């Protein structure tokens, strides 16, 4: 069925095309035929000797021809009308031209028609004259009178013959009839008896077998006893005089009458003359009778000619208009096509007149436009390719790049920008920097640093402004080296370009390296004199204690003990420094994090400050050195307890909470360990340098506890961050960030003291409700148990990927690796991210529950944005309370 319709349409179009091609020649033939028919009709009107059927046949053919022409013209009109209504190019001009042509032809033709018809009417009327008619009637009467004498004579002769025949009996009458006829001079004489049967007949012409019968009128006249006389035209030109008289004879015996008919010939001359008069009279009478019909016939023939002329004129007008306007129509269609963007059109040039030149010019013009368009398209493609290339380069830069329009709106950005700035939306184009800072409050420092520069005229073209900006990202604080430069303000672009580089790890590495060096040298320099001091003090005590007086002895004893104890303490501190600075051996084993946390927390049971454990519902396996992680836990828990002891808690009972969970970030899974307290939080001034050595507010603290924590965690390929927990923002701004950190511990009281909230509301600042140190470690991946892991900071993607593929999963076992102490800070997030991606891919079939756990994780955009170090309350740390022994077994 589907193919039937196109087939039918195809054939329909085929036939329509042929019909359109055939109609003009057929119409020409019809017009010629009609002209011939008109001539023949006009001939047949003048001549009487044409075949009988010709006239009506010609009329019928003419009617058909005119009908055909009318249909052709009607079709043209309908087509023109539909084109006119649709506004087809050239239709209005065609209509106007056709109307002009038709008007030019119709008016003279109608004038000629009108006068012809009136001339015909008057001409035919002028044929007739009253006098002529009277003369014709008179001639006829005269002819009749000419026969009157002969008729009277014939009557007398017949009556005399009747008298003669009366006395003759039946059998003899037939014999006497002929003689009586000869006597009277009659051409034929017949006696009719009963029922008009012929009784006897005598004729001059012996060949006539059957006598001529009188009509019923004459017979009935005679039977009524009256005489009848009249002219009998006969069959040909010979007229006769017919006399019928009653003849009574006793032949039948019943008394019925008989009738005698006598026919008398007329002289040939009289016959000829009378025939001539009769013919002329007939001609004239018929003309009089037919003159109305004749008028109608002539008018009809003229009308046919008029119709033929008009239809032919209209048809030719259509043809002429079409021929004349064809190039204009094509030009109009071509112009429309060019206007719609089709430059491939080329019009046929088939005439050499002005229109042909116009078409030629049009073709030249479109060809040039086409070439120009092609060149433009090529240039456009080149520009697009160039732009795509630049786009690709920018996207692959490790620095974040933003371009801004002169009015400060972002016109383009690469994907690194959103990562660096922790922007969750992928569509920041079109936004201004201020709008972005409003949406992402943690970017406020950037706006503060550069917002004023992005106004027109603030930054001269080519000038560059550079600043280090600290922002709070998903994974903690970031230090961004940001530059903004004004682009040359030409006609096209102008505006600004901003470049961001993450220098957090670089600065951290510099700091760590410096501290390690300081610690190593300090330990070396201090350790050397300590032993002589201790030995000297002991010698003094041994030699002099017994020799001195009691009072002096006591002083010596106390002093030397103090010296010895302090030197011992200093030795411990120096050893700790040395520990921090050296590269220890690590024994990596598969470790269930929650199990270890449980073990450590058990040791704190019964203390003043309770330590709670919130375990993840599933085991979190990490590959780590058990002793070092245990040391980390002790350091953090003690740190928190000491902070609570010294500064008190913000709300409720003081407590320390250790939480483990699975963290999802950028498609990789990490084991997350949070140590939280509900104390006063970290001081704002310290929070950036919390993990640096000697970063402590306690008068006697070494400031090495958290530094060691950081060192150990980085040696394990993890990250550690410190944040203050804050209560909900008191502001009721609709665009305010999430009020509570989504990953804030659920046991934090949601209804913290109303006073604190009220105070926060007054100050428009969030209140600190506690401190949190968060550690993230890569989950254990059996496939990654390779020696390359010994220096995780130096692992490369290329070395990682094949190892992930080739390694055979096996039970976790202890191994010893050397951590790169000074490069631990350089462990990039990307490293274990990539490893984690491999891990997820490989672990899928074997570890379904992990996969499901991953899918349930919070999306990255729900990370806290409310961490602002500027609002932290000071929380001094007691260096004495820090456990610097690095002993995991002795808490």
């Amino acid at each position: 069925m589907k193919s039937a319709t196109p087939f039918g349409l195809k054939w329909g179009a085929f036939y329509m095309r042929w019909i359109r091609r055939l109609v003009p020649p057929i119409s020409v033939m019809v017009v010629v035929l009609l002209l011939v028919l008109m001539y023949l009709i006009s001939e047949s009107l003048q001549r009487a000797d044409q075949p009988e059927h010709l006239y009506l046949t010609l009329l019928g053919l003419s009617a058909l021809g005119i009908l055909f022409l009318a249909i052709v013209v009607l079709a043209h009109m309908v087509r023109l009308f539909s084109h006119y209504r649709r506004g087809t190019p050239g239709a209005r001009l065609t209509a106007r031209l056709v109307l002009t042509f038709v008007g030019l032809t119709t008016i003279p033709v109608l004038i000629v028609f009108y006068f012809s018809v009136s001339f015909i009417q008057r001409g035919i009327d002028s044929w007739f004259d009253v006098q002529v008619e009277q003369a014709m009637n008179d001639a006829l009467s005269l002819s009749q009178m000419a026969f009157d004498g002969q008729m009277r004579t014939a009557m007398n002769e017949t009556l005399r013959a009747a008298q003669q025949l009366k006395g003759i009996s039946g059998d003899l009458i037939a014999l006497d009839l002929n003689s009586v006829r000869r006597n009277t001079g009659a051409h034929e004489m017949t006696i009719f008896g009963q029922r008009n049967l012929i009784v006897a007949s005598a004729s001059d012409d012996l060949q006539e077998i059957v006598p001529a019968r009188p009509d019923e009128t004459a017979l009935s006249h005679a039977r009524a006893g009256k005489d009848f006389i009249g002219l009998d035209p006969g069959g040909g030109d010979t007229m006769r005089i017919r006399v019928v008289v009653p003849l009574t004879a006793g032949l039948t015996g019943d008394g019925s009458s008989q009738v005698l008919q006598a026919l008398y010939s007329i002289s040939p001359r009289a016959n000829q003359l009378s025939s001539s008069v009769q013919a002329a009279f007939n001609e004239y009478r018929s003309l009089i009778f037919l003159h109305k019909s004749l008028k109608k016939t002539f008018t009809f023939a003229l009308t046919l000619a008029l119709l033929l002329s008009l239809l032919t004129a209209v048809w030719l007008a259509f043809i002429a208009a079409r021929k004349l306007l064809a190039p204009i129509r094509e030009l109009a269609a071509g112009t429309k096509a060019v206007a719609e963007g089709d430059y491939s059109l080329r019009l046929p040039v088939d005439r050499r007149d002005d229109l042909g030149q116009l078409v030629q010019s049009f073709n030249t013009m479109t060809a040039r436009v086409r070439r120009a368009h092609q060149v433009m398209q090529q240039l456009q493609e080149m520009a697009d390719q160039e732009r795509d290339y630049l786009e690709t380069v920018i996207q692959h830069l490790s620095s974040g790049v933003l371009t801004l329009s002169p009015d400060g709106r972002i016109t383009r950005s690469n994907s690194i920008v959103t990562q660096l700035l922790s922007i969750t939306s992928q569509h920041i184009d079109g936004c201004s920097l201020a709008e972005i800072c409003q949406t992402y409050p943690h970017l406020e420092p950037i706006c503060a640093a550069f917002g004023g520069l992005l106004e027109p005229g603030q930054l001269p073209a080519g000038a560059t402004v550079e600043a280090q900006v600290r922002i709070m990202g998903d994974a903690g604080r970031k230090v961004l080296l940001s530059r903004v430069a004004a682009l040359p303000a030409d006609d096209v672009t102008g505006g600004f370009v901003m470049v961001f580089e993450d220098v957090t790890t670089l600065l951290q590495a510099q700091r760590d390296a410096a501290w390690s060096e300081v610690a190593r040298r300090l330990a070396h320099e201090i350790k050397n004199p300590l032993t002589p001091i201790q030995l000297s003090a002991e010698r003094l005590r041994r030699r002099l204690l017994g020799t001195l007086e009691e009072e002096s002895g006591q002083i010596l004893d106390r002093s030397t003990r103090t010296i010895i104890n302090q030197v011992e303490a200093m030795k411990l501190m120096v050893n700790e420094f040395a520990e921090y600075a050296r590269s220890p051996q690590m024994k990596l084993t598969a470790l269930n994090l929650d199990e270890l946390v449980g073990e450590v927390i058990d040791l704190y049971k019964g203390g003043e400050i309770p330590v709670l454990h919130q375990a993840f519902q599933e085991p979190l396996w990490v590959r780590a050195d058990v002793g070092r992680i245990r040391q980390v836990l002790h350091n953090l828990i003690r740190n928190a307890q000491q902070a609570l002891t010294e500064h008190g808690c913000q709300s409720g009972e003081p407590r320390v909470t250790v939480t483990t969970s699975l963290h999802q970030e950028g498609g990789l899974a990490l084991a997350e360990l949070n140590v939280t307290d509900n104390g006063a939080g970290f001081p704002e001034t310290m929070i950036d340098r919390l993990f640096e050595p000697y970063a402590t507010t306690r008068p006697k603290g070494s400031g090495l506890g958290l530094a060691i924590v950081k060192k150990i965690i980085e040696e394990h390929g993890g990250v550690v961050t410190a944040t203050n927990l804050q209560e909900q923002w008191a502001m009721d701004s609709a665009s305010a960030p999430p009020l509570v950190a989504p990953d804030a511990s659920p046991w934090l009281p949601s209804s913290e003291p109303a006073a604190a909230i009220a105070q926060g509301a007054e100050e428009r600042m969030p209140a600190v409700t506690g401190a949190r140190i968060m550690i993230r470690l890569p989950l254990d991946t059996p496939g990654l148990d390779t020696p390359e892991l010994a220096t995780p900071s130096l692992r490369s993607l290329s070395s990682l990927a094949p190892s992930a593929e080739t390694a055979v999963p096996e039970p976790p076992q202890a191994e010893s690796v050397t951590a790169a102490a000074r490069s631990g800070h350089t462990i990039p997030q990307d490293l274990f991210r990539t490893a984690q991606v491999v891990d997820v891919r490989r672990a899928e079939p074997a570890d379904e529950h992990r996969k499901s756990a991953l899918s349930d994780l919070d999306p990255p955009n729900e990370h806290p944005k409310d961490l602002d170090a500027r609002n932290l309350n000071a929380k001094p740390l007691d260096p004495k309370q820090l456990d610097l022994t690095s002993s995991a077994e002795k808490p």
Partner: protein
Amino acid sequence: MGFSMPCWKNINPRTLGLGSARALYGRAGGLRRYGVWRFIAGGLLLLLAQGALASSAQITNAHAEIRENVVYLDVDLQISFDAEMIEAMRNAIPLNLTLQAVIDEPRDWWLARTVASDDRHYRLEYHALSQTWLVTDVLEHEARSYSTLDGALRALQQVRAWPISSVKRLAGQAHLVGRVRMVLDVNKLPLPLRFPALFDARWALNSEWFLWSVPRS
């Protein structure tokens, strides 16, 4: 038009119109002469001529019998002329009347086959000099004059002993139907009258076909 009609099983053609009778009975004489054009033009202009049907011809009776192996037909007609026609005759315009008789063999699902046919041509005219009406049998060259038009009409309305066909030609056909009618020969009229006579009711002198039974020997 009539020829394109499908030919169903024959029914009594008297119930059908002129065209139907022609379609059924095929090549009648009048049709061959001017029927097609008459049909086309007549169909288009018939509505223009809804005047009084003053002229008429009707076959009132037709009877055939076999004498000496020839089928003879007696026909009785009823002819009445419109005043226009009488006036035309009085103005020296003769009328040519044709009596057509046909014997058909009807066939199922097909056109009837004409077995035999014959025409009689009469001319009726007024002779001004003798003031008589002249009836001429054109083929027989026999003319008779009548003092009155009624006398002439009476002569025309009775056709006696018209030999149609020999019995031999009719032998073998199982079923035969005869038909007869009177028509006015328009083509013999003066030229200006021919076209109007086709569509003018005053000149509509053609009778319907009258069916008569063909006697079998």
